[in-house]
Structures are given as structure tokens and as C-alpha cells.
């Protein structure tokens, strides 16, 4: 047990050094890598879990909104979507949510639909509504459930996590963590453009 532990520590130290060098290079370029396949710690395990949804149909869901109404993925059929998992305790989520609100309005003529999915729905609708109200969010806010978390998050609890779904219903991108506003808008544009006939 002890020998295994020491071996793991040595190996992990070497691995971590590599990851930190990559992360430092990314920081020097003034960005945080969020996209699978690019060299950052956040993206290092991108071949598994939630990132496997890239290129696949978005999993169906039916969730409750803050008014208790059922909302399904199929309600947005044919529209470019951003499914944004967030939490009331999540500071970076609350940085990007006003950006998403802005894009929701800016790209409404293109059919864009932003949907917030609250990870910590157990805090209650009042708390969630208080937070989204303070943030100026008007796009739909849904309450997550174990099935949606299993299908989309695959066990991770890192927030924010966003899934970009084009008008054909395919997940074209998955991002974990806070990126820049420009990066976010760029992915929104890609989502709108994807699936054009």
C-alpha cells in the first residue's frame, strides 16, 4: 500500500508538472483552455465523460422550470441551443450568465435559445429565482435531476458546464469552466451556423 502510494505520488508529480507547463503556456497566451483536445488540465480527460457527447445527439430530458412547468429538450427542436449547467454557489457561473442573457437577446433573430439548468436545485425555487433575478437572467431556468446529470455531466460536479446543441440536435461543443466572453460568443455563433442546409 505504502509503496503503491509513493509510486503514485512520484508518477503524479511528473504528470502534474507536464500539465502545469501546458497551463502556464495557455495563461501566457491570455486564455484558459476549455475545449477538449487542447492542452489544459481542464481538458486533459476530455476523451471521457461529458465530453463524449461531442458529435452526438443531445440526450433527451424533461425538467421542471421555476414555475413548476415541464420543459423538454424536444420543445426546442430545430433551434440552436446552449444548455448551461450552473449552481447558486458558483461564482464563475454568475459571471457568464449575464453574457448568456446578452447573447440570448442579440441572437434571438437567429433562433438561439439559452437554457439554464440548475445543478443545486435542492436550494429551492425561491433562492434560484432570487439569484437569477439579481443577475438579470430572463432565459428559461430549469431544475436539474439525477437523470439529466448522469446523461450530461457523467459524474463531474464542476460548474459551469455548457453544451452547445445545433439545430439538428447534435452536441457540437462542450465546455467546462469559465472562458472569455469572446470565446463564448464565438461558440454561440458556431452553434447557430452548424447544421445549416
Amino acid at each position, binding site marked *: 500500500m505504502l509503496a503503491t*502510494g509513493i509510486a503514485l505520488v512520484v508518477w*503524479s*508529480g511528473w504528470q*502534474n508538472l507536464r500539465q502545469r507547463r501546458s497551463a502556464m503556456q495557455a495563461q501566457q497566451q491570455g486564455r484558459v483552455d*476549455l475545449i477538449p483536445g487542447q492542452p489544459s488540465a481542464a481538458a486533459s480527460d476530455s476523451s471521457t465523460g461529458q465530453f463524449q457527447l461531442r458529435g452526438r445527439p443531445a440526450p433527451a430530458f424533461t425538467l421542471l422550470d421555476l414555475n413548476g412547468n415541464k420543459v423538454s429538450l424536444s420543445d426546442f427542436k430545430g433551434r440552436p441551443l446552449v444548455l448551461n449547467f450552473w449552481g447558486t454557489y458558483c*461564482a*464563475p457561473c454568475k*459571471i457568464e450568465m449575464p453574457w448568456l442573457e446578452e447573447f440570448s437577446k442579440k441572437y434571438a433573430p437567429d433562433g438561439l435559445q439559452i437554457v439554464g439548468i440548475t445543478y443545486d436545485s435542492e436550494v429551492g425555487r425561491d433562492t434560484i429565482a432570487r439569484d437569477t433575478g439579481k443577475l438579470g437572467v430572463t432565459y428559461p431556468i430549469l431544475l436539474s435531476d439525477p437523470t439529466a446529470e448522469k446523461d450530461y455531466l457523467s459524474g463531474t460536479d464542476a460548474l459551469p458546464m455548457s453544451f452547445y446543441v445545433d439545430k439538428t440536435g447534435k452536441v457540437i461543443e462542450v465546455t467546462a*469552466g469559465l472562458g472569455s466572453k469572446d470565446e463564448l460568443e464565438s461558440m454561440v455563433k458556431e452553434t447557430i451556423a452548424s447544421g445549416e442546409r
Partner: protein
Amino acid sequence: MKMLRLIIASRAFPLSATLALFLATTAQFGNAQFGMDAPANPRAYVLYAAEQQTVPAARRAVLELRFQIVPGFHINSHTPNSQLLIPTALTLEPSPGVKTAPLQYPAGEPYSFPFDPADKLDVYAGSFTVRLPVVATAGDHAIDATLRYQACDNASCYPPKTLPIKIVFTAK
């Protein structure tokens, strides 16, 4: 991802501390975190540096409770700059022969996430010490307590967690 985050702890920590972290984590959650059946929240972001302390009996004394935050992460301070965030807080269970006064939390340090430098949060990073004033009868004492905190790294945040601890000290 969970395994990678455990790895992140290894460089900035001394080997002994990292090994202690590894052993503590695996002891608490078993080896399942490395397998397919890993629990959703298999790790702690804050460790308690338990140490035996000795204070004078029947007189006011202050216990120092030291906590270590896993490198690469921070947690909200006891007074985060937003009502929407979860403050770090320690709750104490009653302990026979021990009277406690309100806990004294350290000041946090300013922190901003990338892409939003104007928004200054108040956080603990690295290590922090909570001070607990006590008056205790002579003898060995143990106070059960629970630290509640919420951790983030430089891009993501993680659900609130609780860390049960046992504060052991001797009054004589």
C-alpha cells in the same frame, strides 16, 4: 477528472503531505475513486491539520485550528463579498468541561476569476487558521466540529462540502 485533480495536489505539497493526502483520501473513500464506480464527490479540498494542543486549565485560552487547502483551489472566506456565495464556517458540538467563545476567522484575500478582474471575491487559499477561545476543566478534551466550505479553482466551482473534525487538547 477526479484522479487528475488528486494529481494536482502533488507538486506543491511536500511528499509526506501528499502521501498523507492520498492515504487520507483513499482511506475515507476507498479505492473506488480510481474505478468506474467512483462516487460523485470523492475528494476533499480542505484538510485539517490535527495537532494536540495544551492550554492552562480553568483559564481563557485560544486553540488554533489549522486548515490546508489543496493547491490550485480556493474557498470562500468567512465573509465573502457576496450574499450569493457560501461562507466558510465551523460549527461546534457541545463538549463536557469546555466552554467556548465565538470563533475568530481570519481575513480573506482578494481574488478575481479570469475574464472578470473587476469582481473581487474574498477567499482563503493555501492555509488558514481559525482561532477558538475556550475555558476548560483540567484533563483531556475533544470537541467534534464540522467545517462547511465551498471550493473553486480558477475556472470552475464545486458543490459545498463538509469536513468533520475532532479538536483534541489537554488542559492542565
